[in-house]
């Protein structure tokens, strides 16, 4: 499933020290958001987020008009026990990519508004919008 990019921000050059001519400083790839409903009161988002700028960026908020709350979380398995913890700030070094994947970092989308057919995710750094991306939901969790 190829996400549809709505806005690939840009004013972020200032926020992120962009020196990546020809491309946005922050890029998301392989975005998958699990289908809402289907017995699951919340959804999970998986993606790869890359910082193509020359400076580290900090993502401290993710929002979605289709969900009342979106949080960055990480599942840690310690001694056979799964512990899910919020990531208050995600730091991505210059040129680095952070992977959100099953059993690891993930977005937790809570309190759906109505029955959304697509989902838009907005990534912020100190209230500066870094990236807005829209995608369809995954057909299933498989």
């Amino acid at each position, binding site marked *: 499933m190829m996400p549809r990019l709505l806005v690939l921000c840009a004013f972020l050059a200032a926020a992120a020290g962009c020196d990546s001519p020809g491309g946005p400083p922050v890029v998301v790839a392989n975005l998958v958001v699990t289908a809402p409903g289907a*017995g699951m009161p919340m*959804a999970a988002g998986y993606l790869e987020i890359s910082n193509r700028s020359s400076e580290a960026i900090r993502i401290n908020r993710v929002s979605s008009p289709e969900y009342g709350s979106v949080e960055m979380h990480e599942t840690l398995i310690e001694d056979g*026990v*799964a512990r899910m913890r919020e990531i208050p700030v995600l730091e991505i070094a210059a040129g680095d990519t952070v992977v959100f994947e*099953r059993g690891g970092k993930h977005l937790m989308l809570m309190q759906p508004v109505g029955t959304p057919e697509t989902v838009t995710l907005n990534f912020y750094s100190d209230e500066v919008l870094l990236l807005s991306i829209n995608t369809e939901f995954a057909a299933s969790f498989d």
Partner: protein
Amino acid sequence: MQARNIVVTLLLGLAIAAGLALALRNAGGPAEPLTATVLPVGNELPDFALLDQDGEPVDRRVFEGQWDVVFFGFTNCPDICPATMTVLGQAKRELAAQGREPLPRVVLVSVDPERDTPEAMARYIAYFGDGNLGLTGELDELRKLTDALGVFFQKAGGDDVAYGVDHSTVVLLIDPEGRLKALFTAPHDVTNLVHDLPLIMAAE
């Protein structure tokens, strides 16, 4: 000349014997589970009183009569629980595609009985396949089961409404006599389950 023939015959015999031994070894003895820990003697389950996804009261006898693969999770868990339930469902479908019998039932026991009503469990388990069982109920009854099985869970973070639950990731295999027979530790993998489950169930 006669002595030489004897030596040649002996060497030939040894070679044939070695070849036979090698062939027998390669033919293999009984296959071993890849990841499961199998208990030599099944552990009896404790008495407990919970509700199934239809709201019907159940006790330890709900585990009798079929093989069950049992995971402890909750419906508000966005990551590891649906991932594990998906793996269990895929493994069961793969076993069915291979014509394996018997097929285990997939069971989710809620470690979040405050939010996981029978209705919530019914919607959730149906997403991962047909014939699944969901159990929820009173916390103290749930503790009877989890404590006996060495399964850990604990509320963590959040507030009264939005909170997480830390919980064991182990998958348990319960035999048709209602005894704990084997356990699988995370990370769970369809290939390993499809390999191990028939071995354990056939050995019973």
